[in-house]
């Protein structure tokens, strides 16, 4: 083998341009494969980090996944609400340390409006139990104060003191605007990489106030209550979408969950966020697998390129191989020469691809985090990634046996006379 190495190197150098292109194809596919794998991991992590420290999410009885979808991700629409009486009852329960009511349904330019209480800013946790922080301003205090998530503020270019009007529902319907009661931006949250970034947060009372003169999802015709008069009405919320609960002791979580499920006054349901998030992620497994399949295809295309280039080059290398053979190379040397080359190109591709990904992570990682909330950390390959890389190298080596085998057969068929 050692006598082949210098030859293999010289020969490869002689064909450096076509080999370089092959290498590039493999580097790109490896970068893509690993990149998608990292994004997938980041998405999964980010997904699990959307909420933390919350022991139970309570809502009207429906499916746990749906409840998590709108309570945590503000997606979909709550078909049923839970009554304010239940909220007050649970909040007063001795086992409950804190509670955050959440009321959804309105939006601002496609961003969900979250009606809640100032407790939200104090008790809500995400990621590694990180609290919310204010990039600017303060929690809402006045009736028509709004606190924006980082993405809302950045995308729409809002600053403190700007006025925003909300739309009824997810927006897009003419006339379904709460434009008679504009809100003032009093706070902008620091970026979290979670759905919080996409929220427009207002008080529950404000949520009531903008719907005072509404009925059944539409403004009552000819009837309008100006903002300065709303304070005269009873703004106590009647219902909320969900309630996030923090308990004094985690040990009580299952008892609490049962108690809520057995609540005689109203059909309620309490879910453990971790369990529901895991279930939700399972429903996304198809997407995950599709992503993996795509990157596997990309790698396959890279290898097809490798085989094509090497096989196409065999014709012009036929003479070279015959000369080698006439001068002592055995057919298996010829085979080894080609397999060695394919293997080396694949390994180099895997290494360079990993490096390229690191470079990319350094270069555009912060941008991706800022825009998509995917935290791509510069890290050594994980065990799973190493397994993927190992698979790639194994597949590449296997694939390069094809030209090796072909060269082997050719060198036997050619005998000592170089046929060109």
């Amino acid at each position: 083998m050692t006598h082949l190495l210098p030859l293999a190197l010289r020969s490869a150098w002689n064909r450096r341009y076509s080999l370089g292109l092959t290498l590039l194809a493999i580097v790109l596919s490896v970068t893509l494969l690993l990149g998608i794998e990292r994004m997938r991991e980041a998405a999964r992590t980010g997904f699990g980090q959307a909420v933390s420290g919350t022991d139970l999410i309570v809502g009207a009885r429906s499916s746990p996944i749906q409840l998590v979808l709108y309570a945590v991700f503000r997606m979909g629409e709550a078909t049923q609400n839970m009554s304010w009486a239940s909220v007050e009852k649970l909040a007063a329960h001795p086992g409950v340390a804190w509670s955050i009511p959440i009321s959804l349904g309105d939006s601002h330019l496609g961003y969900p409006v979250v009606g809640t209480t100032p407790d939200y800013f104090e008790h809500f946790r995400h990621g590694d139990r990180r609290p919310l922080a204010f990039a600017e301003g303060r929690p809402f205090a006045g009736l028509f104060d709004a606190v924006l998530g980082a993405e809302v503020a950045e995308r729409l270019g809002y600053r403190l003191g700007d006025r925003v009007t909300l739309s009824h529902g997810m927006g897009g319907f003419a006339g379904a605007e709460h434009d008679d009661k504009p809100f003032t931006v009093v706070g902008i949250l620091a970026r979290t990489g979670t759905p919080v970034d996409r929220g427009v947060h207002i008080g529950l009372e404000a949520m009531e106030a903008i719907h005072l003169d509404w009925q059944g999802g539409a403004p009552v015709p000819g009837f309008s209550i100006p903002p300065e008069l709303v304070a005269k009405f009873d703004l106590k919320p009647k219902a909320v979408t969900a309630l996030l609960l923090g308990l004094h002791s985690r040990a009580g979580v299952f008892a609490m969950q049962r108690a809520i499920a057995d609540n005689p006054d109203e059909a309620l349901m309490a879910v453990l966020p971790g369990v529901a998030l895991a279930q939700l992620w399972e429903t996304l497994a198809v997407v995950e697998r599709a992503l993996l399949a795509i990157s596997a295809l990309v790698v396959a295309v890279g290898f097809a390129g490798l085989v094509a280039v090497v096989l196409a080059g065999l014709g012009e290398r036929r003479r070279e191989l015959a000369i080698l053979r006439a001068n002592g190379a055995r057919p298996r040397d010829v085979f080894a020469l080609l397999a060695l080359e394919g293997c080396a190109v694949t390994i180099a591709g895997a290494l360079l691809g990993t490096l390229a990904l690191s470079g990319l992570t350094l270069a555009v990682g912060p941008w991706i985090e800022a825009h998509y909330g995917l935290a791509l950390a510069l890290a050594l390959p994980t065990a799973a990634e190493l397994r993927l890389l190992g698979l790639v190298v194994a597949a590449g080596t296997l694939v390069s046996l094809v030209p090796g085998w072909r060269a082997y057969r050719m060198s036997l068929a050619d005998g000592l006379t170089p046929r060109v």
Partner: protein
Amino acid sequence: MAEALIELRDLVFRWPGPAGVCLDIPEFSVAAGEQVFLHGESGGGKSTLLNLLAGVLVPASGRLRVLGHDLPALGAAARDRFRVDHVGLIFQQFNLIPYLSVLDNVLLPTRFSKRRRERAGDARASAATLLGHLDLPENLWRRDATQLSVGQQQRVAAARALIGRPELVIADEPTSALDAARQAAFLDLLGRECAAAGATLLFVSHDQRLAAHFGRRVAMADINRVTMATA
């Protein structure tokens, strides 16, 4: 007479397919140190015979001994080994690896064969001596093989066939791309070097004019019972 270096008896070789029997040689032998000129028509089986002698092809039947080795009895790997260790080869053209320097081309057999490496002693010095004897000035040695004229390339191939002093040098029409004057010069150099190295030379050509340079001349038609008409 010592044992012949090449010894063929009742050898039959056929290519697969319609071509059928290509060689049927009742008797042919070459003594050690001989320089034999083998000539015959194109398609008469000269190259086929050389492939047999080099252990690339195996006969269908008959006796084929080279340097005392019973080639048909050896496995493919052993025949490969035999070829590297004992046979130097020169072809009609395209002898050199384009991306290797002249010197590295000459050293090629010493990379693959321990025996040739050992017999060459200091391989580089020995390559230098051979190149010098074959009229290749030192300023060419580091060049890529492709930068040489065809005649120079053939002399490099001769140096390579001779390095590590193989017992048998086989040349398959190495001069057909050269003009008459160069042909003569090449043959003289090759003959002299083979003699100096103690190598037996089997030189194949269909060009009868070259026969004068050789001590022994053999016509393919005289040893092979298969004639072109029946082949």
